């Protein structure tokens, strides 16, 4: 417990102090202010200005991040639901195998999976040589130069395992006797799905959505790897850029705090509902 206090709470406090601190005028290094009563809000103000003020070049990035994350979460759900449903209900004797293959991406490094797509999508990669039939057709596409759909695809590809597992657990819990009961009571396939299966899978959908969207909010490497273009910058990229460029540590801290404040509500809600479920059992 001391460990967590020391290496989790203290760092977050330091972020606060840096964000509400000033920066050295000569060396442009951040000077944190440890006393909360003396906190200054210049850095936060800078970030705020860039978000909503006249010079609002952060705002499009934030909106873009939200759009990407929403699209990617929808993509994850649309793909993961049928897959999880099939595995839970129809896989039969292939169930163990399918389940193992669903878990497989967990042990494959995220970077390796991005590397795989870079290999495929590079200008002389396999995807281009397939759609141009080996250079015959002039259909070559430069996939990796700031295509939003490539980034969203990368996000879906990267995070979908975290959606699949909770969905599978939720769908696996639905007893078939319930489905039989629904059928006996005259419900057809569609209405059984809509009125029995869907409501019962809500916990899985919620858990999966949170597990997928929270890390996406801080993600910067997917966009960096698959596009390297300012056209697909996400919030994570902004934070990363402020960290690696000198003199902007305070702004990185302020940005991070804004993101955390927005994410705090779903994070706390999710953690609490788990803790409560634990107590109940």
């Amino acid at each position, binding site marked *: 417990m001391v*460990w967590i206090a020391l290496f989790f709470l203290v760092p977050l406090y330091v972020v606060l102090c840096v964000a509400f601190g000033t920066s050295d005028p000569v060396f442009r290094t951040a000077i944190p202010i440890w006393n909360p009563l003396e906190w200054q809000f210049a850095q936060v103000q800078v970030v705020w200005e860039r978000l909503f003020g006249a010079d609002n070049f952060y705002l499009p990035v934030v909106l873009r991040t939200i759009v990407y994350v929403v699209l990617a979460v929808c993509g994850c759900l649309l793909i993961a639901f049928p897959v999880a449903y099939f595995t839970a209900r129809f896989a039969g004797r292939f169930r163990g195998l399918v389940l193992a293959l669903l878990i497989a991406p967990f042990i494959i490094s995220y*970077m390796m999976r991005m590397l795989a797509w870079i290999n495929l999508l590079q200008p002389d990669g396999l995807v281009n040589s397939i759609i141009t039939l080996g250079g015959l057709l002039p259909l070559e596409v430069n996939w990796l130069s700031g295509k939003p759909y490539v980034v969203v695809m990368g996000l879906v590809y990267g995070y979908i395992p975290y959606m699949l597992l909770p969905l599978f657990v939720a769908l696996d819990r639905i007893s078939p006797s319930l489905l039989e009961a629904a059928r006996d009571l005259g419900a057809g396939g569609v209405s059984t799905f809509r009125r029995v299966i869907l409501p019962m899978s809500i916990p899985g959908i919620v858990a999966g959505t949170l597990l997928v969207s929270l890390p996406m909010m801080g993600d910067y490497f997917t966009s960096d790897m698959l596009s390297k273009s300012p056209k697909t910058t996400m919030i994570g990229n902004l934070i990363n850029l402020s960290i690696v460029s000198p003199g902007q540590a305070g702004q990185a801290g302020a940005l991070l705090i804004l993101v955390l404040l927005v994410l705090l509500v779903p994070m706390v809600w999710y953690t609490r509902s788990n803790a409560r479920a634990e107590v109940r059992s």
Partner: protein
Amino acid sequence: MTVSAAPAEAILDSSRSPRRRALRGTPGAKAYGLATITAVYLLWSLLPVAITVLFSFNEGRSRSTWQGFSLRWYTWDPTGSIINDESLRVALLHTFVLAVLATLITVPLGVLFALALDRWRGRIPAGANFLALITFVIPEIALAIGLLFMVTYLATPFGLGTWAQVIGLVTYQLAYPIVICRARLLTIGAHYEEAARDLGASALGAVRRVILPMLFPAILVSAILVFADVLDDFVLVRYLSSDASTETTSMRIYATARAAPSPALNAMATVILAVSILTIVVGWLLFRRWARRQGEKADMGSLASTL
């Protein structure tokens, strides 16, 4: 006693009903459409990686044209192979060092944490449990930047580099052993320990000789998860790295995949993947031995359900 502890997702998830397999094989169900979607999904999710592995064995430099099988990018290429390119070799070694160190610290710490949470009731442990779970869902970048600032602006006994990386990783991974071991402790219940105490075991002896052996599958699974996850970690190790000597494979891939690609990167990623798979196989063998000794059923399902 059952081998399978309550699924850990049950703790992460909202309800904890026992696992039911009842949905399997509804008679007369035709699901070719769903089966096709699943098959296409599996293909989409695994084929790119398979191609990456395949091209790490390519004779030539291309990552899209097959030029014959060779181990060039692993061993004999004078400058580009993972043995001869120093940055790749260092990165691989450092990744393994971090994974071993982080696992060795995280797992015992997490088990103790779980034991403490299991018996100490009240506000403080509830808060600690809450914090542990929050580290699970907080974006990694937040913890990474926090630690980076802490090391930079506070006088800490360790600087950026290996120890900062290990500390960050341990903090981030601690939730795995805690959640998994607590789930297992809940299913074990208190009576085994009480029986051990009645038979004359000391408090410490009861934990050591009764509870810890029963916790073994949970400990094993969390160790595998932590180890495999640390091998893949990117955000934390990148911000907390000091110089080229503390670079990891994921950082190498990030830095060079677009700028200076080479099949050696594929080879490096393949080595990491192979080690991950090896870890799981070793874990599985250990689990089977444990289960045999306990006279339990040992199949993939009972290990997986510890998850």
